[in-house]
């Protein structure tokens, strides 16, 4: 096959974090010989982790510079046979959809890495901080997670995709379980904490993955003959590009039904289930608040900023690109679920008292926009869906970072417990305000662009049901404003509570994470073209496939 660009750049990008892991392991292995102190090991691990994420970001920029947004095909393809016996290939490449996520990933990981360091600013020494706990292990898992995520976004072989998909799970489990909050009993008697959240996250996602795996195998055995990259003829294929072509040629539509249901529909539902858990979609969202609340700050950042996007990415890549016919069948259902997400998330936010939990539910609400935008199947809606993924990928990390800032100082996230902080920590208040405003979709900030495109796209759908869905969902903008401003008021306004006089304003570490995100938020609000230039050509091509035009 001929692609626009063949390059090993993506492979380097995906496995740069693994090189970092190698360096840390080498360090640990050399420890008995070289007699490194624990402190030295810790600092060196941090430095390696930071270096690896920075290099990954730089590679991401190189990728961005070299990407041709006007082409619909895959670019930067690296393709060779991996496991010949099972026709599995190592096949990575990016199109507009992938690259937007890849670039988002490297930068959010960089921000999360900076937030994982105890450098550049004061930390409360009286309380244990996750950044000082088992540092080499943390860094190794962190980097492994980055590899998993990048691989998921780049993989163009279904099996490889699945491998990377599962690779994300494992580090996340440990990162939440070990570095998260310790187990505690809540006032209503429920036992919660990092270990609980980690297991819940792991099992929930795994349950989805299992269904996905079954679909994967079914698709493999239904697929027709194909060729590996070196020309070997095979009976079946995992190659996503080939699978998509077969799907368009009707190979799967003609397959024998499963349990009396059309084959493609069964596959669609199975894949959608696996992905929608990650999105997360109501009613599969309850792992999210627990995982967010009990994960350490950088992990929440990654979870909200990136991992949720993998679910949406999967839906776009497989449910939409691979099974376009079924998507039109399921569009209304997905739209309804999206609206439920939007409204339900917004309402539940209004009742939250824990800052992180509130932000977690706001993610549920905002990811609903993605579903609605996708389901509308209009250019504006689809573009809005992906823009919302990007903007939420920038804004929700900000939100979790500001939540982490206050937790590092006050060791509580109880919104009601604060008050009048604005005078005491003005810079922090301003940053929080900006993050809240961006999240509530204030025009001129990134959140608005995605939202309004989804609204417009939904309204213009050829299916008139979507107009009603938009009408039903639009009060969410009021509720969102309500809960954010109410939170703002309870935390920052009113009279200052003296018990918080010991907390301090933003440190340089926090500035280094928050300011770049804030700047991106503002820029994208007024100048969203960088994202559109990357994704729109691909998306409109996808849409034309769904609409049956091309």
């Amino acid at each position, binding site marked *: 096959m001929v692609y626009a660009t063949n390059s090993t750049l993506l492979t380097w990008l995906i496995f740069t974090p693994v090189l970092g892991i190698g360096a840390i392991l080498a360090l640990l292995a050399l420890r008995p010989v070289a007699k490194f102190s624990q402190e030295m090991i810790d600092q060196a691990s941090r430095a390696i982790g930071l270096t690896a994420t920075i290099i990954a970001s730089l590679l991401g920029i190189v990728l961005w510079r070299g990407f041709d947004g006007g082409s619909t095909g895959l670019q930067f393809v690296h393709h060779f046979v991996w496991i010949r016996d099972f026709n599995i290939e190592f096949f990575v490449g990016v199109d507009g959809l992938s690259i937007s996520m890849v670039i988002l990933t490297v930068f959010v990981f960089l921000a999360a890495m900076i937030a994982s360091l105890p450098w550049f600013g004061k930390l409360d020494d009286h309380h244990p901080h996750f950044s000082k706990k088992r540092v080499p292990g943390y860094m190794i898992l962190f980097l492994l997670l980055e590899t998993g995520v990048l691989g998921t976004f780049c993989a163009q072989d279904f099996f490889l995709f699945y491998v990377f998909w599962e690779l994300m799970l494992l580090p996340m489990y440990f990162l939440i379980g070990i570095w998260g909050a310790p187990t505690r009993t809540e006032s209503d008697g429920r036992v919660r904490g990092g270990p609980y959240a980690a297991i*819940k996250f792991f*099992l*929930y996602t795994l349950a989805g993955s299992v269904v996905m795996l079954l679909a994967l195998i079914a698709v493999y055995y239904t697929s027709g003959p194909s060729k590996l990259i070196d020309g070997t003829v095979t009976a079946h294929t995992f190659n996503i590009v080939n699978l998509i072509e077969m799907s368009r040629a009707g190979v799967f539509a003609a397959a024998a039904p499963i349990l009396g249901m059309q084959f493609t529909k069964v596959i669609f539902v199975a894949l959608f289930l696996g992905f929608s858990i990650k999105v997360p979609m109501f*009613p599969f*969202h*309850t*792992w999210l608040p627990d995982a967010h609340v009990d994960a350490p700050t950088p992990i929440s950042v990654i979870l909200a900023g990136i991992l949720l996007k993998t679910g949406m990415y999967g839906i776009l890549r497989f449910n939409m690109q691979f099974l376009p016919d079924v998507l039109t069948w399921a569009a209304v259902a997905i739209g309804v679920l999206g609206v439920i997400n939007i409204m*339900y998330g917004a*309402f*539940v936010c*209004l*009742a*939250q008292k824990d800052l992180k939990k509130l932000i977690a539910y706001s993610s549920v609400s905002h990811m609903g926009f993605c579903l609605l935008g996708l389901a509308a199947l209009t*250019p*504006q809606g689809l*573009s809005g869906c992906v823009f919302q993924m990007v903007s939420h990928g920038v804004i929700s990390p900000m939100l979790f970072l500001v939540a982490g800032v206050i937790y590092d100082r006050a060791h509580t996230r109880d919104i009601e417990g604060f008050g*009048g902080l*604005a*005078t005491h920590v003005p810079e922090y208040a*301003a940053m929080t305000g900006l993050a809240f*405003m961006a999240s509530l979709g*204030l*025009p*001129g900030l990134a959140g*608005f*662009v995605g939202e*309004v*495109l989804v*609204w*417009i796209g939904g*309204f*213009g*759908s*050829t*299916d*008139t049901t979507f*107009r009603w869905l*938009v009408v039903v969902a*639009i*009060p969410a*903008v*009021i*509720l969102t*404003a*309500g809960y954010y*401003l*109410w939170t*703002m*008021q309870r935390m*920052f*306004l*009113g*009279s200052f509570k003296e018990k918080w006089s010991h907390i301090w304003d933003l440190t340089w570490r926090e500035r280094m994470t928050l300011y770049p995100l804030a700047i991106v938020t503002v820029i994208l609000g*007024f*100048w*969203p*073209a960088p994202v*559109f230039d990357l994704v*729109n050509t691909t998306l*409109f091509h996808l849409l034309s496939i769904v609409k049956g035009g091309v």
Partner: protein
Amino acid sequence: MKLIHFSGLFLIPLFPLIGAFYAGAFGLKIHRRFGEKAIHFPTVILPWCSFVVAVAAVIRLATSGHETALVQHLWQWLHFESLDADLAFQMDRLSAVMVLVVTFVGSLIHVYSIGYMHDDPSYWRFFSYLNLFMFSMLTLVLADNFLLMFVGWEGVGLCSYLLISFWYTDVEKAKAGMKAFVVNRIGDAGFSLGLFLVFWGLFGVWTHGEINAATHHETAAVEAESHDGEHGGALSVTSVKFREVERILHDPARREAFTSQHWGGVSLVTLACILLFVGATGKSAQIPLYVWLPDAMAGPTPVSALIHAATMVTAGVYMVARLHFLFALSPVAMSVVATTGAATALFAATIGLFQYDIKKVLAYSTVSQLGFMFVAVGVGAYWVGIFHLMTHAFFKACLFLGSGSVIMGCHHEQDMRKMGGLRKLMPITAITYLLSCCAIAGFPFFSGFFSKDEILWKAFTTGNLAFNTQGFWLWMIAAVAALCTSFYMFRSYYMTFSGEYRGGHAAHGHDGHDDHDAHDAHGHSGAPHESPVTMTAVLSVLAFMAVVGGYIGLPHLWHMPNFFEAWLEPIFEHTEHALHWAHKPLSLEWGLMAFSIVVAFTGFFAARWLYRNNTNPIPGKLVNTDNKLIRGVHQFVFRKYMVDEAYQVAIIDNTIYTAKGLSWFDKWIVDGIVNLCGLIGRTMGMIQGFIDRVFVDGLVNLVAEAILFGGRHLRKVQTGRIQSYVYALVGGALAVVVFMYAIT
């Protein structure tokens, strides 16, 4: 319409944005290090720069022909497929009026704020917000499409929020800000829906849902052409650009296609206009979303003057005027606008009759005056609405700033019962306030007279509403509201400025702004004092404008040139053709004008009789009457018809209940099911574990146990003594022998 590229247009909003960034990002440190001058010099000068650029732009516009607009396209924003929202500015004659009003009044208020906010610890923050507001407001009025307008629309809402809760340590003020934002958002949601309806409705085949791909591509080509200011060629399929939409609607076939659509049994255009108007009710504080404005008085007074009187709240009126080509298509929507305006005008005016807080009086007066403006744009007299908007900006800003001067002079006392006699102590404030009162009350030859009288006349003669006699009723309501206006404005004047000062030291501790005590340093130990020159100069300028501002729009009746109508004529002329006005005799027009003068003076004399020098006992008696009915009515009106309470019960409480209920549902049902699955899994595991341990593993262990048992006992045989082995061997051999014998 001819489009002229004007590359300085973006500077108008940019200047205040620079100021906002400067004061917002570095203000705290600069304020501490260099003092207030380093803050207010840049942030006050920059809006003036905007004003200068705006004047230059308007001159360019005025000299370049009749139907022209200045445009500047910066870059593509949300621009793909049929959506064409760009970051582009447009200044036509309507925007020009707004820009001049906003930059002129806004800049004046910046100057005023130097004195008013002096010594506030958050001085920098105030100017940052104020500049940000200017930026948003200018974006709103200069936007060339719905979506960019929406940026400004919500931006001013944000600034309003920030400025209302400026003194956020007082939780009530913080809540007032939040209320303003959330209520505005309700309107914004309606506005968005209206916008979508217009955008998709323009396809003309909306109800059938299918979008013709062929026309689609054609449009893209046309749009590419029309990018560089060319105006002409084929019409877009749809657009969010104001001028595009207007052009499309001028095309009879397209207009027919647009207006003939229905959704849910309601005409699409009516629905769209009403939804857009919902946005206007939020921003411009009309029934039913007016509730935030009176609370918004929690903000510093310059804010009330700038945002909540002169500029932001008029955005709704501007929007309706801007979209006149849409509203004119739907008599029902026009009726809704005009009726809501009239109802609000009367409703708010009656509440204003009984308020004691000087700013609350002005707040309800603003709501009421905005109602007048909506009557004007609702009956189709768009230029009159804008005219009143402009005169109102002058006199209401002057009134508010005057009240600010009074409040500052009285050490943050806002209760008029504790004022009085300030005319001698604050002469400039008193005179400017009086002049503005005359203007708002509609005294002849003051600016308010021309605009308000024109509104009444237009309401009386309109033929553009859904019902024929509606104009008369609107006129009646508006006239009563005008009477109330005259009364409560002069009431506030007399309570504040006439008689003897009733405040004194006793009232001193009354104010709640601890962070504002610094102002008292200027006080002459408790006695009210005239404000600094930055404030009084601004008051004088505004009062002058309040008096003479109306002369650019003199009535036709007097056979004088009406510059204002002529200026705006190109904007509205196409719509004017669709509008109908009843032709009434000149004598009637004279009569009505005389009537409105009588109304103004009636209110004035009533207020003078009741409140002058605080000597008339009737108002006191009325308040303290034993008559339950009067007392009840008074209380009911005084407490603003209990609307806030009703909203609290009907909407906010229910929302919170729903939120709590869903949260409970999420925690115990949805998550409960998840945890139940987990629990079932664990229980199954435990049962299987039990089976495994007891039965499966038991069997394995049984074998091992048996072998162990056998071994333990067999071990005893292994004595290590060779002799015993030999015995065993021999014995065994013998046994074999015996056995062999036995079997043979």
